[in-house]
């Protein structure tokens, strides 16, 4: 971690380019490998590179290290006191673990400052379970897993118990709901451990292969089951249960991706979860397509299946068990899309499992953007970025306050913010009977282990939750220094200063408006203020603000240039003037300006950077030649080579072979870019500048840098000399000339090359010549071949 911070420190020294920090890494890398890298066979290197890129790409698309979520809610001991504790990661690198007391009133708010622990890696998962009135919190980072104990008494401090280190990244950590201090750990090498704080680690299984069929994902998961000694192990292909007392002998298959569960092709297990608090033998398995509820007693055949249709695989799940006659509520959360889905199901012992009511979509974090006061565009953008950070965790609780029942849902984003929304219970309208085949199991299945009592159809008293309001917990990371002040204010919500702008909360038309309460709106505003305060400096540069730079650097470090320099002022003035006149600026006066901001971009847009030249050359099969050119050191050498090639080119033209014309035209192009590297001076005499002089020269543009006068563009284009220069064989010259003349004659006014003209406004003369001259030519290979 310190190395990373130093790295960031160094980065700050070279302010400006957001990619700068890569430079130092690259330099280290090149120092490290310049001795041997060239010895590695290219094919092998390419393979490795490809593999790495594929891996990185797939982790960009789907990051399974977050499975399980990094947010945990520790409910109050007896359920009476309206307070609990949130456990979540935070800090600059998400490597601090916070235990924050939260008071649940109309608006949940934090109380006191959180208990903090600094860990040595990014926290991926926080899991918690309550055993014997004590909460055990397991924390997983890539190479370390730790366990904390939080005594049930309010106000008792959490105590770290043990930490283990793994050689291979751990992919799972679950806490036993049965025995205190017992956890299960999986690593990506396919090993499953039972970890007891007192007796240590017990290896239950080691198998780098997946269980039922081959799948290359190293992801493994394990959880507890109804029997404290039996653990479930999962990989992408299914679940197996192992007896910890004899893991080799005693095991059975709990779920298999395949025919029994009616899985479809490509379906893989994403998150298994033991639903012990709802029913001792029930199990939840989510895939990217469906949700399954399984019963350990009837393995392999799911007792409930429902396709969730979420856009990203549900990586987080949270169970809120209902009372015996009520439905159990399962929340599913996705990371990238922040989706949140509430499912309710009932049954298992007395009646068959079935969904209760329809599933419900809850607000995601990004959805609250609409409720925030209107922002300046750049702030709006920043806010949008911040709010659309992938979700990193999910926790929820049911709160019963007399007749008012509600559900509180906490969501953690990867930026370290915790958001909260409340659903309140409404019993007003009875719902349609939910017994439909959509959610049932295999037809004809009856309740497990019970005489099929007359199926309770037409249940009107659903535990349905109606959306009422969304509101948000103050950002727990960004405004850490302001938190004290935050609290005082929160206890006495001030009246609203301005009316909340009501907008549609979702992209689709005709939505249901959900308005945050005044107190929530106030908290929003506070959060915003703090957020922007923390962001003011980084906002000027555009690098992602996942790191709180304020504490890393002094204020002076972060200060940008004081104001517009005289040069900038001058330029602005010039620009304004030109705009008024309706003219164009051919080139900026102070071309020698150190980093000319606009020309740089245009250079890229022109496509004449070394890379594209190289690619063009490689495409034409001329790569070796290009490489030789690159490796020749001096400009003189290059010029010599150029001359020689031109001679060859002429010879090739003489031969009039098609292939020769092809290669030579491309060689020419690579020469061009070659030359552009050298500088414009050599160019001006060998090639007539084209298309640069149409239109009136801008008023303020100095004559020094404007290109020398040249023949009219048509002439320049159509002259046979220019054709020959470009290595176009004679037999095609006529065709081309005809073509170009038609094109040139079209508009009576100076011909406007479509589209590209505007872009040439501020390109330095040499560049503009090159890009425009190469335009009609570049199409050639594609046209002819």
């Amino acid at each position, binding site marked *: 971690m310190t190395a990373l911070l130093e790295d960031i420190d160094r980065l700050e020294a070279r302010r400006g380019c957001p990619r700068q920090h890569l430079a130092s890494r690259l330099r280290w890398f090149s120092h490290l490998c310049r001795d041997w890298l060239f010895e590695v066979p290219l094919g092998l290197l390419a393979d490795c590179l490809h593999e790495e890129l594929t891996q990185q790409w*797939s982790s960009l698309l789907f990051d399974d290290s977050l499975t399980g979520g990094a947010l945990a809610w520790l409910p109050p001991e007896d359920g009476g006191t309206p307070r609990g504790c949130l456990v979540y990661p935070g800090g600059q690198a998400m490597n601090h673990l916070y235990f924050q007391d939260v008071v649940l009133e109309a608006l949940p708010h934090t109380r006191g400052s959180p208990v903090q622990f600094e860990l040595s890696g990014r926290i991926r998962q926080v899991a918690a379970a309550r055993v*014997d009135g004590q909460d055990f919190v397991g924390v997983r980072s890539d190479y370390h897993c730790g366990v904390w104990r939080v005594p049930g008494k309010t106000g008792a401090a959490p105590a770290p118990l043990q930490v283990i280190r793994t050689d291979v990244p751990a992919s799972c950590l679950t806490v036993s709901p049965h025995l205190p201090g017992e956890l299960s750990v999986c690593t990506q090498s396919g090993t499953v451990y039972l970890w007891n704080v007192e007796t240590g680690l017990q290896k239950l299984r080691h198998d780098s292969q997946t269980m039922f069929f081959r799948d290359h994902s190293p992801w493994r998961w394990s959880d507890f089951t109804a*029997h404290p000694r039996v653990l479930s192990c999962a990989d992408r292909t299914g679940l197996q249960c192992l007896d910890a007392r004899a893991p080799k002998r005693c095991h059975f298959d709990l779920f298999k991706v395949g025919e029994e569960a009616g899985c479809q092709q490509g379906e*893989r297990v994403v998150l298994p979860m033991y639903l012990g608090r709802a029913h001792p033998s029930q199990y939840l398995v989510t895939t990217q*397509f469906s949700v399954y509820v399984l019963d350990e007693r009837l393995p392999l055949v799911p007792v409930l299946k429902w396709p969730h249709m979420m856009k990203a695989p549900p990586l987080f799940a949270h169970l809120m068990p209902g009372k015996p006659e009520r439905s159990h509520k399962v929340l599913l959360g996705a990371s990238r899309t922040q989706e949140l889905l509430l499912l309710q199901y009932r049954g298992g012992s007395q009646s068959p499992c079935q969904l209760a009511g329809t599933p419900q979509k809850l607000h995601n974090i990004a959805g609250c953007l609409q409720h925030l006061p209107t922002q300046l565009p750049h702030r709006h953008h920043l806010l949008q970025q911040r709010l659309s950070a992938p979700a990193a965790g999910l926790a929820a609780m049911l709160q019963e306050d007399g007749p008012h029942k509600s559900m509180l849902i906490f969501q953690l984003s990867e930026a370290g913010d915790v958001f909260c929304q409340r659903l309140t219970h409404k019993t007003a309208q009875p719902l349609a009977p939910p017994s439909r085949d959509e959610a049932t199991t295999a037809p004809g*299945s009856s309740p497990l282990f019970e005489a099929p009592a007359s199926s309770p159809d037409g249940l009107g008293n659903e535990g349905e939750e109606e959306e009422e309001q969304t509101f948000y917990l103050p950002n727990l990371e960004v405004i850490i220094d302001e938190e004290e002040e935050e609290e005082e204010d929160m206890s006495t919500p001030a009246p609203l200063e301005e009316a909340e702008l009501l907008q549609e909360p979702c992209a689709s038309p005709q939505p249901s408006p959900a308005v945050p309460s005044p107190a929530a709106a106030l908290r929003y505003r506070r959060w915003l203020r703090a957020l922007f305060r923390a962001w003011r400096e980084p906002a000027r540069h555009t690098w992602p603000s996942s790191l709180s730079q304020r504490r890393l650097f002094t204020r002076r470090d972060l200060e940008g240039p004081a104001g517009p320099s005289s040069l900038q002022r001058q330029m602005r003035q010039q620009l304004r003037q030109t705009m008024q006149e309706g003219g164009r600026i051919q080139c900026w006066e102070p071309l020698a300006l150190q980093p000319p901001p606009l020309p740089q971009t245009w250079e890229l847009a022109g496509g004449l950077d070394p890379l594209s030249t190289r690619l063009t050359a490689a495409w034409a099969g001329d790569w070796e030649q290009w490489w030789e050119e690159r490796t020749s050191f001096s400009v003189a050498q290059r010029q010599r080579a150029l001359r020689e090639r031109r001679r060859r080119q002429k010879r090739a033209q003489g031969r009039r072979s098609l292939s020769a014309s092809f290669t030579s035209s491309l060689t020419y192009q690579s020469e061009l870019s070659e030359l552009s590297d050298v500088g414009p001076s050599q160019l001006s005499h060998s090639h007539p500048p084209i298309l640069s002089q149409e239109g009136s020269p801008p008023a303020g543009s100095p004559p020094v840098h404007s290109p020398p006068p040249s023949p009219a563009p048509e002439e320049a284009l159509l002259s046979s000399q220019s054709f020959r220069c470009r290595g176009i064989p004679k037999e095609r010259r006529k065709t081309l000339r005809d073509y170009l003349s038609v094109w040139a004659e079209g508009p009576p006014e100076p011909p406007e090359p479509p589209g590209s003209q505007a872009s040439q406004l501020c390109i330095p003369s040499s560049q503009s010549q090159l890009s425009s001259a190469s335009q009609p030519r570049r199409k050639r290979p594609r046209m002819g071949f």
Partner: protein
Amino acid sequence: MDSFLEEDAEAVVVVDGKRRKRRRNPAAQAAMHPSLHLPFLPPLPVSSNEHKLNFKKSKEACLDYIQDALLQKQWKRAAEFLTCYVESLEKDYSREHISASEMIWRIGTEILWHHSQSSVKEFSCFMEQMKTLGVKRYLKVCLEHVFHLLCNGQIDEAYQNLSLAESWRFGEQTAIQDKEMKLIQAYRGLLDYCSWSKQKSILLEHGEDEFSDLAVEQEMHSYFRKAAVNLKEIIKIPGVWDVFVKCYVDLLEFYGDHNEARQVLNEYAYNSKFPANPNAHVYLYQFLKRQGESKKSLISALKILHDIVPSHELMIDFNTMLQKSKKRRKRRLGLEVIFAGLDYAGWKENEKAWSCLARQVKQIVISEKHLDWIKQEWNSRKDWWPAFHFSRYLAKRNWQENKNLSYEKALVAGILLGKVGLFEMLPKTKGRIRPRISC
């Protein structure tokens, strides 16, 4: 979106065994896609007619809106979007046609089910249209329709629909949808069974009136024949058919065909092609018990249930049965059974189970025979039972919630742990024996 359509269409159906081939080149997909196949990734840019793409895009957007509305219970809004989505049927260029119509069927039923202004008539009308729209899933739509009617209490109409569906013939399609046909027949059998049992109860009520009896009885028998034929068919196919099996066995038992019933239940429980279904063993056990079978066969039936589900409620009966046995081996098994049951989290506060265990342990200790049994059982549990069952926290809570449970547990704990200290908060006045042995 095409992947969404077809994959979702498959996902919804549980009984659907067929798989459609994926269209994209798997190699190209492997390079572009993560290790997990994600259905909602934006599709790869395919060079094709822009018009098609636009259409596809708007279709996709429309579907998104529908989903959004459905998940927020805005049925009216969803219905409006669905009417737009119907256009995707008309202007569909690809093979997605089937999926699109299936989509409409599924979404439509869902909306009509929840929409406040929908009526059964409308629903039936919609269903009829859906049946003609997709021949390939004709029977599935029929089945769905029947379920809907049943949920609305229209049993006669449901029966008519089932009969109609049963007589449906459509070339190859009939053979392809054989599985669904079997289900349709089975459900018709189930409805016949319902009518049969209704007649039966009428008959039992008016036992004296002989004239009406005859007609009712004949009707009843005809229902029986119809039901038995269909039910018999479905339970031959490997699967979980609890409802059908129970009904069929009930029919057979009523007409005294015990052998057939026994055979059916044995087949259902012991055929290895069927999924391991604990209910099958429960039904067999209950049947045997009704038949007054010998203890031995009851015990053997329960033994298998014990092997599959040690935490089943019947294990307490099993334990009592074994405890009463004179054979040493069986009593030993009884102890094993009750220990194994209490291993499970669901049994933690099962007073009955604890009292069974307490009774048996007490017996063993008093008789001072077979103390080694307890010792053996305890050996594999002594490292985790104390924390799992006998923690101080639990003792306190049990005492507050259920005193009887506390007594039983205290007795067991006293014997197993060799000390009484753990449960010291129990009142000493209660004159219970707390024998001390060293295990």
